[in-house]
């Protein structure tokens, strides 16, 4: 049983749940205390010790039955209730059926499914060993069922019914028989699905870690696939915690805050109320951020992570406002931020697209800066860090360098996050080389690692 639990922990880890060695030891101790007889308790003891995040419950619930289930619902024997005559009829009818599919019908009527070895052989033939992510499980399962003959099963059952009728079996018995066969069919399909799910999970656990977040952090945003984006979205949660801890521990304290009258009275009780020690409130310096994001197609991925990171860290900054720009500039509504926080990027960008409909060659930072200076200048002041996230490609519109200069003077710091490599700046319609010297800092954020490092640096200053 211990081996099985450890295998299960490996499966969980491969599914992206973080389980430490100490936690798996806790799980084993918990199992020792509660035993394995009661399945619910066993499940509960594993869950309380291994899964420490409500988001990971789904992965746990998916894997638990695969590792500790009975392998799927049991099948029943259809011929049990039949009279000897009828049993013979069934046997004869089955014998008369042709070839490969006979075996499947045999399984379904007798209630004795394929043995473990047979299942494994079938899985191998369906290509289960080459699958290593859960999305493929359904596909492999379908192929395996097809190979077992499920595709032609309907016809076969019809034929069987016909033969039995010809042999003179009563309609009632046939219907009952078919009911059991139908139930067995579902049970067998479920068994196969579980077998495949388990095998894929185990294979994923044994595979070298090629798809893990830590490596993907270095993969450029524009070449991430949908699956990889999903993995990274999970990774962002962890990243946020790390960044927050670092930011909190490192945050600069103001040299002197206001006089703290309450604290002083409290501290000087010990001297009989004579104010010997004066107390001051600690002043924590938190940055205040204003973010302008380019939301054209090419920057969608980086914008999502940027908004996710910064807004998850909202408690580490004193004020934060985000604007999205394309051909116009709009403030990012709370609804969009909520979607991003809950990892629903499609809904988020859907809303943004409605506000900023797509137009070919639409991006126009120059006029957006103008809107910003005319309508939203009140959100920036001498303490603000203004971040522009974009590739600086303006479609040959006026870059409005003058406005950037003006903004740079107004804010504490003007920072540019560019998702392109440095050598691409200034090529084609990119005005980046003109913008760059005007900014206090410019970061190239091609991947999540660079992005988080840049955000980290912002929080520190």
């Amino acid at each position, binding site marked *: 049983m211990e081996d099985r639990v450890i295998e299960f922990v490996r499966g969980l880890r491969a599914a992206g749940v*973080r389980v*430490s060695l*100490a*936690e798996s030891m*806790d799980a084993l*101790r*918990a199992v020792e*205390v*509660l035993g394995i007889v009661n399945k*619910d*308790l066993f499940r*509960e*003891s594993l*869950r*309380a*010790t291994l*899964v*420490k*995040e*409500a988001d990971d*419950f789904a992965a746990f619930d998916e894997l638990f039955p695969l590792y500790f289930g009975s392998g799927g619902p049991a099948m029943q024997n259809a011929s049990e209730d039949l009279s000897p005559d009828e049993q013979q009829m069934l046997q004869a009818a089955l014998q008369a059926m042709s070839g490969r599919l006979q075996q499947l019908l045999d399984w379904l009527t007798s209630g004795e499914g394929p043995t473990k070895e047979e299942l494994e052989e079938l899985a191998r033939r369906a290509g289960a060993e080459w699958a290593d992510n859960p999305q493929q499980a359904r596909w492999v399962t379908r192929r395996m069922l097809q190979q077992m003959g499920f595709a032609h099963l309907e016809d076969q059952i019809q034929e069987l019914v016909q033969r039995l009728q010809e042999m003179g079996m009563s309609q009632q018995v046939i219907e009952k028989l078919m009911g059991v066969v139908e139930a067995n069919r579902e049970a067998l399909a479920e068994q196969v699905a579980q077998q495949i799910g388990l095998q894929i999970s185990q294979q994923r656990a044994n595979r070298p870690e090629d798809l893990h977040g830590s490596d993907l952090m270095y993969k450029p945003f524009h070449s991430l696939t949908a699956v990889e984006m999903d993995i990274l979205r999970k990774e962002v*949660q*962890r990243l*946020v*915690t790390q960044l*927050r*801890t670092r930011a*909190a*521990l490192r945050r600069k304290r103001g040299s002197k805050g206001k006089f703290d009258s309450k604290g002083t009275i409290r501290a000087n*009780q*010990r*001297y*009989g109320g004579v104010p010997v020690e004066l107390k001051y409130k600690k002043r924590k310096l938190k940055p205040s951020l204003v973010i302008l994001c380019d939301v054209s197609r090419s920057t969608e991925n980086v914008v999502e992570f940027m908004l996710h990171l910064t807004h998850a860290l909202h*408690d580490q900054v004193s004020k934060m406002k985000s604007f999205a720009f394309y051909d116009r500039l709009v403030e990012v509504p709370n609804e969009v931020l909520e979607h991003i926080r809950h990892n629903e990027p499609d809904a988020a960008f859907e809303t943004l697209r409605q506000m900023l409909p797509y137009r070919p060659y639409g991006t126009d930072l120059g006029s957006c800066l103008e809107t910003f200076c005319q309508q939203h200048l009140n959100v920036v002041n001498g303490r603000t860090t203004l971040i522009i996230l974009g590739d600086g490609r303006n479609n040959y519109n006026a870059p409005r360098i003058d406005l950037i200069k003006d903004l740079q003077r107004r804010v504490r710091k003007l920072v540019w996050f560019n998702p392109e490599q440095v050598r691409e700046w200034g090529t084609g319609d990119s005005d980046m080389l003109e913008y760059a010297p005007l900014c206090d800092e410019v970061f190239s954020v091609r991947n999540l690692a660079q992005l988080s490092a840049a955000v980290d640096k912002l929080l520190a200053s």
Partner: protein
Amino acid sequence: MFKDIADVQTRLSHQQYIASDEISTVVYLAQSLCKPILAEGPAGVGKTELAKVWAKALGAPLVRLQCYEGLDESKALYEWEYAKQMLYTQLLRDTLRNMLGDVNNLAEAAQRLAQEEDVFFSENFLLPRPLLTALTADEPVVLLIDEIDRADVEFEAFLLEVLSDFQVTVPELGTIAAKHQPMVLLTSNNTRELSEALKRRCLYLYVDYPALEAELDIVRLKVPNLGPALAQQAVAVVQQLRNMDLRKVPSISETLDWARALVTLNAKEIDEKTLNNTLTVLLKYESDVAKARRMMGDGGSRGRYNR
């Protein structure tokens, strides 16, 4: 101490707390593995209440530490009472003089004083705050660390020693280990992510809103005066509200408040008028109230909200 999981459930229910299988299993595990519990979930589902009834069920004292931003060691652990120490020194001056009256030289006086040193640096002058109280108690206690997510990250790091080894280090006295391991419950409303180090040391319990049946049981237990039919109706309304997209969905405590309000108002059934009058007990935002009225299709908002 609880004997088994069923025992946890019965003894908690004697304290008027309906514990799901999940909750009672985790409580039992926490006791047998000597590990703290980290309870997460939406506000008002009875996380804090769990600690209270846990203590009552065991007959153990409850020590509560409410976390907030800026909470530090001196407020959570101990404070050194300089005033008391100074006062003692003053009052004992005569005794000291008598004691040292017959010595011949400075060295002898110092040595004699050193023998009595412990008097001046003893636990007498330690003013215990919740954490130290829990550790030095003469019987096992239940320690409730409420809303840990409100405390600073620094404080979370400080808690790690307490939670894994059940000991604290006081510079003046050295390390103080717990006489009895306290049973610890941390609660969090998930306003921020907790560090992995903290999570690793705890058993995890996610308390969610209960299903209809469970909530009905709670209402029956806590507000027995409410008629059964009315209780059923009320809980159904609350469950329906929770499925709506509201700024703040009603919690269990609000369900109970509402149930009590219905009893006080002597309501016979939940009709338009009653609902209109009492909806503000359940919903705390004007926009939510308006939305709920619109959804329930009652007449109170006709014309104004119906578009």
